[in-house]
């Protein structure tokens, strides 16, 4: 079919222009009627909205309680919670509510966000007592009158909902988080990988570095050197990728085998529960423990 010919839309536009100019035209075509009705509905909705804004009562609003802190600003140096009442709409996420509160009530409300679709990992927050991505959390699903939003626990708070991610990034970097094959084919050839092997590493490659898992783990909270579930999962992603080869795998196992590596995991499972990408973190950590033991047994 061609995109160049669209006869019907041309006439429709002419019609609509005509309709716009000759509003008091006597005979109303069905199209005109619909457009008029549409117009009426729009005015109605606008009026409703105006009214709603005046009488924001509890039924159609949600209350969000947001953690506030700023080391620099007087009055915010002492952490506190601020309440915002935000008009609710179907499909509203916690991120939408935060954005509304910021843009309408307090532009100094600070949080990270970007993609709005659970791929950038910026907005992992502690929402109603659990690590979640704000953009991925429907307010309706929380089943609660108020939504309590805090920065990720166990991380230093920079300001409001923004935490210092440096330590998390350091842990990620410490597992040599890059593909590094023992040998590569010719320049114009790809490596082979069985679909089964890809399937095996698939879940582990989905990590978006949001840090929710690390924040939920009691061990990571206490033991600062613990690699943490995300970094171990990263190591898993490469160690299990058959394209890298055995030599590299040995090296990778050595990294996760250190005192503050996999052994620190006490299988609390909270990392697995909060991961927005459903990565079976505990399973991966456990598998690495077994792999590590196996590779050591070889030398006994």
């Amino acid at each position, binding site marked *: 079919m061609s995109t160049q010919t669209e006869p019907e839309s041309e006439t429709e536009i002419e019609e609509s222009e005509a309709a716009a100019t000759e509003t008091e035209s006597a005979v109303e075509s069905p199209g005109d009627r619909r457009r008029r009705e549409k117009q009426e509905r729009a005015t109605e909705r606008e009026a409703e909205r105006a009214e709603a804004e005046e009488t924001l009562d509890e039924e159609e609003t949600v209350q969000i309680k947001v953690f506030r802190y700023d080391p620099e600003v007087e009055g915010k140096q002492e952490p506190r919670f601020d309440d915002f009442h935000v008009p609710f709409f179907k499909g509203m996420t916690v991120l939408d509510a935060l954005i509304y509160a910021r843009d309408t009530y307090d532009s100094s409300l600070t949080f990270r966000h970007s993609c709005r679709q659970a791929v950038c990992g910026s907005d992992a927050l502690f929402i109603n007592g659990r690590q979640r991505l704000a953009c991925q959390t429907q307010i309706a699903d929380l089943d609660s009158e108020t939504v309590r939003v805090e920065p990720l626990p166990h991380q230093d708070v920079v300001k409001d909902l923004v935490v210092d991610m440096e330590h998390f990034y350091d842990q990620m970097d410490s597992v040599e988080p890059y593909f590094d094959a023992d040998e590569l084919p010719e320049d114009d050839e790809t490596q082979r990988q069985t679909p089964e092997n890809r399937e095996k590493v698939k879940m582990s490659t989905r990590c978006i570095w949001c840090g929710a898992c690390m924040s939920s783990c009691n061990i990571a909270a206490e033991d*600062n050197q613990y690699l943490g579930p995300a970094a171990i999962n990263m190591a898993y992603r490469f160690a299990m990728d058959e394209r890298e080869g055995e030599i590299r795998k040995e090296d990778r196992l050595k990294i996760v*085998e*250190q005192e503050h590596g996999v*052994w620190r995991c006490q299988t609390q499972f909270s990392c697995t529960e909060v991961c927005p990408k459903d990565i079976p973190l505990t399973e991966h950590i456990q598998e690495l423990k077994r792999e590590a033991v196996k590779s050591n047994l070889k030398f006994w």
Partner: protein
Amino acid sequence: MAEHYSSFQRGGTRWLLQRVTAVFLIGVLAFHFFLLHFVNHASEITFMGTQARMSQFGYFATMWLFLVTATFHGVNGVYNALINQGLEGTRKNAVKWLLVLASLLLIAQGTRVAIAMTNLV
């Protein structure tokens, strides 16, 4: 890359031993409890009874192994728990040797007691 991480001790051995001892302990602990609280009611325990049991070589060996594995398992567990809490550096080392010392004392004393319970001495 290996030398890069050589400062880290491989923790796999202790992890594995913790599991192996656990498997052993399941049986022995259950047996121990059952024997001394249900079969022979604890309140009826006398030195005579104990001596009779301990003088059997199999029982003695089991109890002694029980002591050793439980000590390792328990003390290693405590040590792990402390590392999990972020214990580091010199304090960690001090705690480590303290725990080793405590375990050795416990095993030594336990062995002494066990031998005293037999009719060998």
